[in-house]
């Protein structure tokens, strides 16, 4: 680990000033991903600014019936919050499918969204990686790419975003509240993360000096018909090969609204509005679900070691939709 200085701050203004004063400065909250990466010199900040004392540590009801999750609330406190559990069980399940209890006691909501990929080559400073060292090349495309993307990848990067929480937030159409040098703004969840393109070093559309303050959940939490299905190499404490977050509104066996987000398959949680729209108004049948899965995976392209993910994702989508509906309501 490189040498760095450390300070803690009491206000967002102070944190933003620290960030703009020196671009080697990083914010630290839970620290579970940043310190991990610092130990192997993937991250080498010259200064760490501890933001744990900022006032973003509450979960509050919003006037529109939604819920505001403070950026500094831990993943565990969010997942077990009574309002989250009753109104947004999809989010609770997704958070609890990720990491370990110890990590969830440390990791914050803001930090969860900003965690970096678990691509082996991103972690290995002895190998080229365009995300870690722009322009050096992608070792995964022709390397061991079993855990890598099948959708939205580029010739420069085939990494996936590792968060489970983010997949549920994508399905719920959360909004991320950010403060920065030019004041406060709201970012639709869809627009927070980005595809790698020719700038894979950028995971998100946040600007330097930006600080996530909270995440707003809309009033509709799909608590009646939901499923977070995570497929991984072991039963617990592993990153997703494929995950599916489903939220549905149904009426008499007919799909009235569908939200489907995939994890483990792309540089960001993957949604296909067209496929969701096409399912709307249709009866909940296996055939319709299979058609939806095919639409979502249109254009999917795997690599030497992850071709299995295309079929795995197709089946996972059908199963998640079926389980969200409940077998008795299948037509």
């Amino acid at each position, binding site marked *: 680990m490189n040498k760095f200085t*450390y300070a803690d701050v009491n206000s967002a203004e102070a944190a933003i000033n620290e960030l703009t004063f020196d671009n080697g400065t990083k914010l630290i909250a839970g620290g579970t991903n940043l310190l*991990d990466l610092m130990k192997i010199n993937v991250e080498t900040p010259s200064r760490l600014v501890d933001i*744990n004392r900022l006032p973003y540590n509450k979960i509050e009801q919003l006037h529109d019936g939604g819920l505001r999750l403070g950026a500094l609330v831990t993943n565990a406190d969010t997942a077990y919050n009574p309002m989250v559990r009753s109104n947004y069980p999809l989010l609770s399940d997704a958070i609890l499918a990720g990491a*370990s*209890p*110890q990590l969830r006691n*440390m990791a914050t909501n803001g930090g969860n969204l900003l965690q970096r990929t678990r691509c082996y080559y991103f972690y290995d400073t002895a190998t080229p990686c365009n995300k870690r060292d722009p322009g050096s090349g992608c070792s995964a495309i022709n390397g061991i790419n079993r855990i890598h993307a099948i959708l939205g990848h580029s010739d420069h990067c085939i990494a996936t975003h590792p968060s489970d929480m983010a997949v549920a937030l994508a399905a719920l159409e959360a909004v991320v509240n950010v403060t920065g040098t030019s004041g406060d703004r709201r970012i639709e969840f869809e627009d927070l993360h980005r595809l790698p393109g020719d700038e894979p070093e950028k995971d998100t559309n946040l600007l330097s000096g930006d600080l996530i303050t909270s995440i707003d959940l809309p009033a509709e939490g799909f608590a009646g018909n939901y499923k977070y299905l995570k497929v991984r190499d072991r039963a*617990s404490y592993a990153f997703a090969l494929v995950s599916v977050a489903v939220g549905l509104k149904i009426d008499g066996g007919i799909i009235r609204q569908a939200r489907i987000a995939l994890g483990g398959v792309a540089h960001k949680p993957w949604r296909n509005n067209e496929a969701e729209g096409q399912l709307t108004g249709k009866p909940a049948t296996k055939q319709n679900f299979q058609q939806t899965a095919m639409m979502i995976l249109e254009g999917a392209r795997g690599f030497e070691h992850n071709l299995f993910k295309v079929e795995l994702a197709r089946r996972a989508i059908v199963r998640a939709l079926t389980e969200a509906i409940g077998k008795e309501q299948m037509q």
Partner: protein
Amino acid sequence: MNISTANKQTNSGWPAGSASAPGVSGLLPVNFIINGQQCSLHLDPSVSLLDALREYIGLTGTKKGCDHGQCGACTVLVDGKRINSCLTLAVMKNGSEITTIEGLAQGDELHPMQAAFIEYDAYQCGYCTPGQICSAIGMLNEGHAETLEEIQELMSGNICRCGAYTNINAAILQVKQEAGNE
């Protein structure tokens, strides 16, 4: 009892730490209450809580396994919550109350979880055991594990390469049932 690096008290039962004296450039003052004892140190900001415990305070019961949050051997209780001490900086926990494996027994009387681990032979090599025990206590405090399946899921952050899981689960279930009967 005050354990301070400026005035090391080796009669505390803890070996003298190796932290540098206060005032040296780059070091930051850190104060914890560790196992009920006040502890004052001056540490480089890069020192993890795990290294502070083991290398600077001499509490080597907490184990370093992977040092990347993947194995759970370093699990301690910070303000009552179980965390991986390898993935937090000591300076970030300034002012916290920390409980390690050394702080669980009351004199010669083992903590019920320690006693159950012995009764159920819940270890082989023992390297993961301090983390398993701290994690199990943290889990029961959290109150979300009711069934064997839930215990297995909520203990998944603690790896045992000897494979003593069956007996670890039995020990935890026993403590949980005893606590429920009180």
